[in-house]
């Protein structure tokens, strides 16, 4: 089925220049992008799925030797969909995040919070035939950054998705519900449409919460793309 990518949907994204997020000031292009039609190179994309996944890549709470990370264990699951609500199967989902204390293992992160020798903070899965993904991880901590005085990033998990085509590529961040830092965060707030901003927030879910083990959060991700022709009656709820 031929895909179409309505450009009107892109209004959900932040303006590239969002001065409250200081790093955009010298990095955002100032000239408008030039609109081009989608050709073979944009409508195709890399096939990245199961081959990149190793056993355990979906569980960030344990090191290879079975040692357990510190912090609040959580399960983050959901579906990867397109704008028609169709699942995006067999696509690579990569995540990375700070540990429970708000510290990344990254060499550049010098926030004086403890590293956890049993938490690396990166994971990957491929979506299943229904577009579902699932990670077990540790709830990340908030951490300070130097964007403005007393600036703190709300707890978040970075997500990288490929979808089926070059145009579906998405890098984003998942946030946790009820965090008072949301309204103070220039990165989250760069998305000016409140409904779009809310789509970056997972919901707590008792049904995916594992008794006596881990709290469940559910987050569905919607990539660009629709079917070029209307779907048959009855094929869509």
């Amino acid at each position: 089925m031929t895909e179409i990518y309505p450009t009107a949907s892109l209004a959900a994204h932040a303006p590239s220049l969002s001065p409250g997020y200081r790093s955009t000031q010298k990095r955002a292009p100032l000239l408008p992008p030039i609109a081009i039609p989608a050709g073979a190179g944009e409508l195709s994309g890399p096939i990245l799925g199961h081959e990149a996944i190793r056993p355990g890549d979906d569980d960030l709470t344990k090191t290879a030797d079975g040692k357990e990370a510190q912090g609040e264990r959580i399960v983050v699951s959901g579906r990867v969909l397109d704008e028609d609500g169709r699942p995006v199967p067999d696509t690579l989902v990569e995540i990375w995040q700070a540990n429970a204390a708000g510290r990344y293992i990254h060499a550049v992160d010098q926030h004086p919070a403890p590293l956890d020798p049993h938490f690396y903070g990166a994971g990957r899965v491929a979506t299943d035939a229904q577009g579902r993904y699932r990670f077990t991880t540790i709830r990340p901590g908030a951490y300070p950054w130097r964007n403005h005085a007393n600036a703190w990033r709300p707890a978040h998990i970075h997500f990288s998705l490929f979808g089926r085509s070059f145009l579906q590529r998405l890098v984003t961040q998942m946030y946790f519900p009820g965090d008072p830092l949301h309204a103070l965060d220039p990165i989250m707030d760069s998305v000016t449409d409140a409904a779009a901003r809310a789509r970056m927030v997972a919901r707590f879910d008792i049904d995916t919460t594992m008794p006596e083990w881990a709290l469940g959060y559910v987050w569905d991700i919607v990539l660009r793309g629709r079917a070029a022709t209307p779907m048959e009656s009855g094929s869509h709820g």
Partner: protein
Amino acid sequence: MVERKILGITPSQTVGPFFHYCLVPAAYPYQAAVDAAIAGAGTAVEIVGTVLDGDGAPVGDAMLEFWQADAAGRYADAGPPANAPFRGFARVATDASGVFRLQTVKPGAAGANAPHIAVSVLGRGLLNRLYTRAYFAGEAANASDPVLALVPAARRSTLIATAEAPGRWRFDIRLQGEGETVFFAV
């Protein structure tokens, strides 16, 4: 026919400064999920460039992703007759000097498009992935490329890699300001 319900897309957010250990983990004890080079039959080339900000300062924490056709102009997912094992995708980070290097094969013309590599730029301060194209100087097909034709002539040079040495092409990326690279909306 049922009315089509449209879901709002998930907004993009910056990749931030701390992605390397997951996405381009060469310096970390983690297996990369994505190739750092593009292998295939054809002419081996290296694309070298520097990513610069609006002050002309190097961007030392950017990530670039590349997607291209093979030497015969076929994309990897085009289906049978498959050109497997060609994958056509790679990603690399810039170093502290803002320099990136891609080892690849020179792509062939795909349809009416002159040979080019699709380039995505991600990084701290980039809320949305930027999309540009690297064409090759001296290709006759550049003159009739339908995408280059949409670009004002004075800015076209930002899209054209120049031969720097045998097998090596330079493609600098200026995010902002004088000589700003052309980025596309699709």
